[in-house]
């Protein structure tokens, strides 16, 4: 029962990681840019939902509204900032995304202040108990949403004309242009969808832990997920997110107590610290050595 409870907690946390990571992968797939500002969009989404709820909308409507607002923000980011950098080196574009993160934090700080804010309840409080296992409604929602969205995006890329255009634009933008695909518009769509997803992830996180500027740190957690899953793989993000969440939970729930128990009995060491933040990066390091493209990533090939 303990193992199941720990695994459930890991899956629930991992689902939120996956949701944020999927957004990063969406942009990377279409434009080749790693968006370091994804955590900023998540934070902005949560603050937007808070503002809409304060303006009188019911919490679920405010959340939906925030997702739409973030979609527009994402599209505007691409139109006003990134489109002007089409010829710039990818590293420069990535630095701009980092700048956007700082800008979003500054805007939220100026408008809402630095304090922790209680976030409106979107889901019922408490947890559902299934066969002795507790899962909060927020986490049930996060898990379902990330699973459904991942599958939906997979289907979108594989079976729809727009998905095909997005893949073409990502694979070779010049060739895509030559066959009549408006590459810039495809990138705009990717940014809009990715930002909306990040906004949704931010709203879910805020319903769990309250709202503050530190919510943007979730973007950092998503990076081991996409490296582990493969930068171009949506399914990889989902699987790696869940894997990372489980790994953290089992490190906390089993490995740490066992290790501490052993060390306390045989040495003068009392605590191993917060081991959960070491294990994921060790795994990422190991993965990069063995399989640099990640679990689901594809090794790049070049015709000579």
């Amino acid at each position, binding site marked *: 029962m*303990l193992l199941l*409870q*720990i695994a459930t*907690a*890991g899956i*629930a*946390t991992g689902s*939120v990681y996956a949701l944020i990571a999927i957004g990063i992968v969406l942009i990377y797939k279409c434009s080749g840019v790693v968006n370091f500002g994804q955590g900023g969009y998540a934070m902005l989404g949560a603050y937007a939902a808070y*503002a809409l709820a*304060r303006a009188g909308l019911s919490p679920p409507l405010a959340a939906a509204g925030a997702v739409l607002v973030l979609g527009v923000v994402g599209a505007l980011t691409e139109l006003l900032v990134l489109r002007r950098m089409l010829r710039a080196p990818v590293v420069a574009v990535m630095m701009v995304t980092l700048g956007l993160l700082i800008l979003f934090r500054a805007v939220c*700080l*100026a*408008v*809402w*202040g*630095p*304090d*922790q*804010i*209680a*976030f409106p*309840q979107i889901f019922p*409080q*408490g*947890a559902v108990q299934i066969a002795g296992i*507790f*899962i*909060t409604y927020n986490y049930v929602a996060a898990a379902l949403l990330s699973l459904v969205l991942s599958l939906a995006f997979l289907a979108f890329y594989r079976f729809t004309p727009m998905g095909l255009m997005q893949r073409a634009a990502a694979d070779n933008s010049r060739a895509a242009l030559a066959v009549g695909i408006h590459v810039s518009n495809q990138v705009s769509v990717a940014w809009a969808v990715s930002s909306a997803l990040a906004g949704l992830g931010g709203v879910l*996180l805020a319903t*769990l*832990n*309250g709202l*503050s*500027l*530190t919510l943007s*740190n*979730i973007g950092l*957690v998503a990076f081991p997920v996409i490296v582990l899953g493969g930068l171009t793989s949506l399914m990889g993000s989902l699987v790696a997110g869940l894997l990372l969440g489980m790994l*953290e*939970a*089992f*490190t*906390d*729930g089993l490995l740490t*107590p066992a290790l501490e128990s052993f060390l306390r009995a045989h040495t003068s060491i*009392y*605590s*191993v*610290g*917060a081991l*959960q*933040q070491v294990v994921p990066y060790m795994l990422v390091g190991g993965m990069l050595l063995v399989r640099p493209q990640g679990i689901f990533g594809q090794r790049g090939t070049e015709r000579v």
Partner: protein
Amino acid sequence: MKRHSSRVPAILAALAFALPAAADVNVCVWGTITGPDAGVNGMSYGTVDYLNYLNQTQGGIAGQKIHVILLDGRYKLDEELKIYRRCVDQENAVVVKGWSTGSAKALREQVQQDAVPFISETFSSEVLDPAKYPYLFIQGATYEQQMLIGLRAAKAAGAKKVMLMHGDVEYGRAPVTVVRKSGAIEKMGLELVDTIEFRYDAQDLTAQLLRVKAKNPDVVYIQASTPQALVILRDAAKVGLPAKLFIGNMYNIHPSIPEQLGAAAEGFRAIQLYANYGDDVPAMKEIAAYKAKNQVEKEDLYFMKGWFGGKFIAAAIGNAIKKSGGKPPADIKAFRKAVRDEMVALKNLDSGGIAPPCSFANHQGPTQARMAEIKGGKYVAVGSWVDAQ
């Protein structure tokens, strides 16, 4: 929203116009104006506001205008260390009021070398040593004393088994290590069944709470800040542990805990060192008078602590000026030493009811605390003030 939007220009103005007039007495205050523990930055605003209140109502202290410099340390150690140097070398502050446990520990030797009175917002016992650190002061019961007050209350209620939970930062780790190694818990007749260290920015602590559940303690003491207490109480409720099992330190008194968690927070207790904002104490009359003409950024317990800190600083500076013939010593080093000596000499400091009258010969001022419990969505004082000693 309107209130916050006016804050940034105010901060910028405070930073931009930090040039002192020649005759001013400079006091430097830094806190987390923006950063992870900004929720308790009333401690900085309170001090700044009290000194400005004296400027407005009494022309300063002993006839000298106080020039208060407020800076943002952002809870980043490197930033705090830079600010300290600025306060001492450039601003010529006669008193420096800092922020975190990490910075107080990093600066404790430097402060003695610079011979500048330094007050920290930390409650760590590791910086409290009047013989070794004669220029370093805190303002209340140490984290360790708070922990023991909480556990003593739990023991009185019948607790036998104790667990400790703390964040993986100096503020979390150091006090727990001191108490654990001291054997004070066992001396109290309690059994420490486990200690859990967790990631300070953890999003989920279910696994840790399952570990708590497996150990079945009678009380769990949390050495962490508001965001972590939120996660702990939320996940505790999830695995079926009641909030009344947990006790937090003075930084766990924050409205966002009952607001965010609702019924899941009912029964949670925390250590209270100062009067609540709005309590019927004389200091509130001063605050109300100040508020009538100025904007008060934070209206909470932490602002009260800051106001108390302002009174402490003002009393020592005032006495030092009086003793040097009504004018501050011309030499900043002599002035700093005089203020430090007056801090130690303060007896029965009247804080207007924010804390019981206290002296600072112990370098920590008031050592009394009481428990506050969340009842009906609000923190309510339970029991009377008890002395940590």
